[in-house]
C-alpha cells in the first residue's frame, strides 16, 4: 500500500519535472481541508511507528537490516522523542496554544510550513531523524533522495499510513522526490518552496544547497562535513567499554560524521595499560568487523585503504590489520598527514598530557567520545568544547543521534516563535 504523498514520487521523477510534482503536491496540501493533528497525537503516531519497527513489521523488511535501524526505532519511541523536545521547549503546551511565560507575556510555537531535507548519500537514515522531528511539530516535509540511493523512506511512510488517521496524515504531508545531484532544476524547485532547508552531507552537497535561491525567510540547517575522535584513558577503560568503542568505529564504516577516526589514548606503548588496551581494542575491531555486515568496497576504497596503510608505515607507524582490507589500526606518534581514515581504519595516538594533543584536533570536530577519570573529564571537556567539539558521548553512544546536533538546536528551528503581550489583570 502506498499513501498519497509517496505515491507521487516513489519512483524517480522521470517525465514530469520535480518542480511540477512539488507544485502539484503543495497545491493539494493547501486544498485539503483535513483535520489538523496536534503534537500529542503526532507523538503517539511516532511511538506506534517505533513499535512497528521493533516488532519488525514485514513492510520494513528491507529497512530493519540497515545499519542504524535500531537507532531510529529507539529514537522514535514516544518517551524519547518527548525528552528531546523538552530539551528545547520546556512549555510543550505552546505547540497547541498560547502559554503564559511571564506575567504579561505569552508564547506560541507554530510550524514553519514546508521543510525540505536533502538526505546524505552515506547515511540516508539520518534524514529520517530530521524528518521525524519536523513532522512531529506539524510541518510538511519534502525529502530528496539521489537517484542512486536506496529508498529508505517510502517503507516507513507505508507503515505509518497503515497505523491510524494521524499516521496517514503525517505520511500524506511527506513527499519523497528522487533526482540526480546534477539536476539543478530539481534542487531549485525544492529550495524555492522551502520554509526550512536542512541539508546533510559533504562540503559539495552543503554548498550546492546553500547556493540555491530560496524565500527570504527560509531557515537553513546545514549538517556538513565533520570529523570525530575519541580520547581515552587506557588505565580506566574496561573491556566492555573497549568493545563499545570498537562498535562506534565499525558500525557505519566510519561514514557517519560521528564515527571516530582518531583515537587519542593516554598511556605509553610498552606499558601494561596501553598494551592491554591495544590488544583488546584490536580483538574487538576484528570480531566486530566480522559480525557487522559492510558495503562492498569498490576499487577506489580498497586503494585508499592500502594507500593509508603505506602512509602510516612510511611515517614510522605500526599497523595491526587483517589479511585483507577489513580493518586497520595504525599506532602512530601523531596523526599521519593525508590519511583519510575510512572503512574501519583508525589511528591510535598515545599521549600523556592533554597539552600534547590539542594541536591535532581537526577544525571541523563534531563528536569526541570520552572515557576519562572524573576530574580529567571536567578539565578536558571544558577546554575541548572551546576548540569546537559539539558532543562528548561515552563509548558506544558515538553514533546515537541526539539534539542538539552539530552544536545546534533542531526542533526550535522548525518552528516560528510567536509572542503576545497580555492585558494587565483587572484591578
Amino acid at each position, binding site marked *: 500500500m502506498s499513501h498519497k504523498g509517496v505515491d507521487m514520487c516513489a519512483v524517480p521523477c522521470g517525465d514530469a519535472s520535480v518542480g511540477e510534482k512539488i507544485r502539484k503536491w503543495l497545491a493539494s496540501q493547501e486544498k485539503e481541508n483535513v483535520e489538523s493533528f496536534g503534537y500529542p497525537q503526532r507523538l503517539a503516531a511516532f511511538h506506534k511507528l517505533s513499535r512497528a519497527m521493533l516488532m519488525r513489521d514485514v513492510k520494513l523488511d528491507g529497512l530493519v537490516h540497515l545499519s542504524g535501524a*535500531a537507532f531510529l526505532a*529507539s529514537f522514535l519511541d514516544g518517551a524519547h522523542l518527548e525528552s528531546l523536545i523538552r530539551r528545547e521547549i520546556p512549555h510543550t503546551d505552546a505547540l497547541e496554544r498560547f502559554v503564559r511565560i511571564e506575567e504579561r507575556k505569552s508564547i506560541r510555537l507554530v510550524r514553519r510550513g514546508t521543510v525540505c531535507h536533502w538526505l546524505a548519500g552515506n547515511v540516508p537514515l539520518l534524514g529520517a531523524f530530521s524528518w521525524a522531528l519536523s513532522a512531529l511539530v506539524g510541518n510538511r516535509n519534502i525529502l530528496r533522495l539521489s537517484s542512486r540511493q536506496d529508498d529508505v523512506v517510502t517503507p516507513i511512510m507505508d507503515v505509518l499510513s497503515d497505523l491510524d488517521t494521524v499516521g496517514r496524515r503525517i505520511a500524506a504531508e511527506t513527499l519523497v522526490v528522487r533526482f540526480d545531484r546534477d539536476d539543478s532544476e530539481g534542487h531549485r524547485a525544492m529550495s524555492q518552496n522551502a520554509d526550512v532547508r536542512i541539508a546533510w552531507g559533504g562540503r559539495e552537497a552543503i554548498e550546492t544547497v546553500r547556493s540555491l535561491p530560496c524565500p527570504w525567510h527560509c531557515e537553513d540547517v546545514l549538517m556538513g562535513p565533520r570529523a570525530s575522535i575519541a580520547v581515552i584513558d587506557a588505565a580506566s577503560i574496561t573491556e566492555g567499554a573497549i568493545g563499545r568503542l570498537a562498535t562506534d568505529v565499525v558500525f557505519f564504516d566510519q561514514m557517519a560524521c560521528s564515527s571516530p577516526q582518531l583515537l587519542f589514548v593516554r598511556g605509553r606503548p610498552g606499558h601494561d595499560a596501553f598494551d592491554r588496551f591495544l590488544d583488546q581494542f584490536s580483538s574487538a575491531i576484528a570480531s566486530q568487523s566480522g559480525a557487522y555486515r559492510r558495503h562492498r568496497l569498490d576499487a577506489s576504497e580498497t586503494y585508499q585503504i592500502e594507500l593509508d596503510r603505506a602512509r602510516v608505515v612510511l611515517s614510522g607507524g605500526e599497523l595491526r590489520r587483517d589479511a585483507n582490507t577489513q580493518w586497520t589500526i595504525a599506532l602512530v606518534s601523531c596523526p599521519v598527514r593525508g590519511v583519510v581514515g575510512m572503512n574501519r581504519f583508525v589511528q591510535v595516538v598515545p599521549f600523556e598530557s592533554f597539552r600534547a594533543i590539542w594541536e591535532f584536533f581537526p577544525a571541523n570536530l563534531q563528536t569526541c567520545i570520552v572515557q576519562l577519570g572524573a576530574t580529567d573529564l571536567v578539565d578536558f571537556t571544558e577546554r575541548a568544547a572551546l576548540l569546537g567539539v559539539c558532543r562528548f558521548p*561515552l563509548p558506544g553512544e558515538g553514533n546515537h543521534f541526539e539534539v542538539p546536533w552539530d552544536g545546534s538546536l533542531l526542533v526550535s528551528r522548525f518552528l516560528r516563535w510567536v509572542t503576545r503581550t497580555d492585558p494587565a489583570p483587572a484591578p
Partner: protein
Amino acid sequence: MNRGELKAMMAELFRCDVNEIQDTTGPGDVTGWDSLGHVALMMELQNRLGVHIPVEDALEIASVSDLVRILDRIGSDVN
C-alpha cells in the same frame, strides 16, 4: 517478575525456545537478539517493570546475568 518469567518474555520477544535463553546468553547468541531486538527488549522491560533503563546501562548488557544485575541496581528485583 522472576528470572524464569524474564527468560520466557525474552524467548517470546526473540521468537526462540526458552531453553536457548541461559544466564550466559547475550546479544548475538540468538537470532532475534540483534541491535533491534536489544532495543525492543529494553522498551518491553521499561513498559512491564515501569523502570527507566539508561542508555549507558543498556549498552553494557552482554548477557542475561548482566541484565538481571542492572535491573536489580535500578530497583527492579529479578531473581
